[in-house]
């Protein structure tokens, strides 16, 4: 009961903070008479979102779609690479510098290349989202698998367990908390990737909508795009947090499971 009250209190505090920021923003804009071409008020942004929703919705669904597809492929490729690299010390040491190299390339810079290869539109956005979210997944999965206790590995090997047995029974479950932590980072990065690509080379998506709106000084619409992106990012983050809680509860035992049992 006390724990419940505690959670309610923290939730209430964070909601109050978010609302507070909007209120201050609103009041400041009104008080200092800030033009809505410089900084629109939150109420204006929401009004735009509601009024022009039929026009905004296709862009939102396009961005959500490219992000999720890119993210899905990123997870597949990231887990595969992570397992591969984590299973062998040699692979880990050999491939790591290359991975760091690739990950340090600013992803905006590769969008033109994708456009060159695949044309403008959905494909480069999906590819950019994928590329940008692979790295944290690979690193986390590989770390989870590579840091299996040597004693445990000895115990398994004396049982004549194959590499696959060890991976399946020990390595993968052990990597799950790392994997889910990386998913939460990856999903927000995937949005960055797809929006950047849409901004550069697409005629659909929230990124593209914001580009067009800003070129016609429709600043409230630009901010509406931002709000939309934030809302989608937060929703997906929450979904993955919930899945994480269910799947890897054992890793957060101090807070949750101890009470459940």
């Amino acid at each position, binding site marked *: 009961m006390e724990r419940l009250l505690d959670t309610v209190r923290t939730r209430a505090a964070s909601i109050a903070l978010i609302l507070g920021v909007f209120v201050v923003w609103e009041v400041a804009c009104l008080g200092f008479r800030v033009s809505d071409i410089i900084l629109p008020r939150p109420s204006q942004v929401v009004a735009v979102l509601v009024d022009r929703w039929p026009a905004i919705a296709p862009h939102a669904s396009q961005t959500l779609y490219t992000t999720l597809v890119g993210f899905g492929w990123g997870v597949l490729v990231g887990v595969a690479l992570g397992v591969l690299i984590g299973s062998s010390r040699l692979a880990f040491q050999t491939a790591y510098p290359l991975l760091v190299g690739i990950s340090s390339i600013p992803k905006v810079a590769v969008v033109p290349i994708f456009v060159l290869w695949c044309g403008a539109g959905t494909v480069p956005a999906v590819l950019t989202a994928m590329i940008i979210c692979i790295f944290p997944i690979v690193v986390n999965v590989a770390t989870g698998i590579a840091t299996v206790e040597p004693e445990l590995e000895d115990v*398994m090997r*004396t*049982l004549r367990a194959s590499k696959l047995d060890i991976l399946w029974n020990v390595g993968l479950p052990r990597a799950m908390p790392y994997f889910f932590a990386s998913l939460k980072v990856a999903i927000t990065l995937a949005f960055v990737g797809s929006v950047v690509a849409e901004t550069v080379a697409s005629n659909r998506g929230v990124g593209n909508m914001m580009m067009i709106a800003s070129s016609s000084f429709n600043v409230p619409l630009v901010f509406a795009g931002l709000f939309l992106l934030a809302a989608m990012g937060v929703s997906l983050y929450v979904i993955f947090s919930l899945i994480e809680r269910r799947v890897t509860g054992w890793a957060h035992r101090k807070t949750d499971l101890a009470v459940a049992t």
Partner: protein
Amino acid sequence: MTVAPLVQASPPLASTTAAAGLPPRPLIALEDVTVRFGRGAASVTALAETRLAIARGDFVALVGPSGCGKSTILRLVSGLLPPSSGTVIVAGREVGAEPVRIGMAYQNATLLPWLTVRQNVMLPLKIVEPFRSAWRRKKRGEYRDRAEALLAQVGLKGFGDKYPWQLSGGMQQRTNLCRALIHEPDLLLLDEPFGALDQFTREELWATMQELWMTKRTTVLLVTHDLREAAYLANRICVMSARPGRILEDCAVAFPRPRPMEVVYEPDFVTLTQRLRTLIMGVRSAASL
């Protein structure tokens, strides 16, 4: 109650007994085994020309100063480490090819935190043949009962559905022993399994271990720093020298079983542990000179 005299190490070689056709052959035989780590000038000899034979069903303890190669012997016998020279024979074959089942328990219980105690204990059945083939069919029936029975035997009845981190250190180590024994290994390798426990818990686990050994008669090779533990549990104690390790003394421990915990205060027991202690202290000081 008498203590057998400390006899000089002269274990029979497996090959000679085999050649003479003399049964029973030892389950484990190390023949002039040397282990070196590293290459060239920087190489370290961990184990030098070691001979050791262990009969099936015996309980042997390896004691010695730290870094003397006790754990190296365990790793050799389990096939995790190949010898630099010499041969390691387990169940009549060279190690690695042997059909024997091995159970292993370390000081660190290494239970899997995402599995319940029972699932942890059942893990070897999922991996080792012939249990593995029937895993899907029997995991909810026979294997589950077997795990529960073993847990009950070590005093963990009713803890099967708990998670490892809900258990005390001693209980975790009991679970670890169950995991090492569930697949009825021919050979149980213990590397200081009770080292991290407090005195009282440790003594409780000695009693549990003795009881397990007396019911199952598994061959046990125990590595320990604790001379009382070695003398209480083992039938034979092998004392190792400092690095490069070799076996200095091989003495039988003749206290009748089941040994009550009070045996550790008997004069014969104290004399034995003191002799072992003097021996190891001598080895240590010789090594540091």
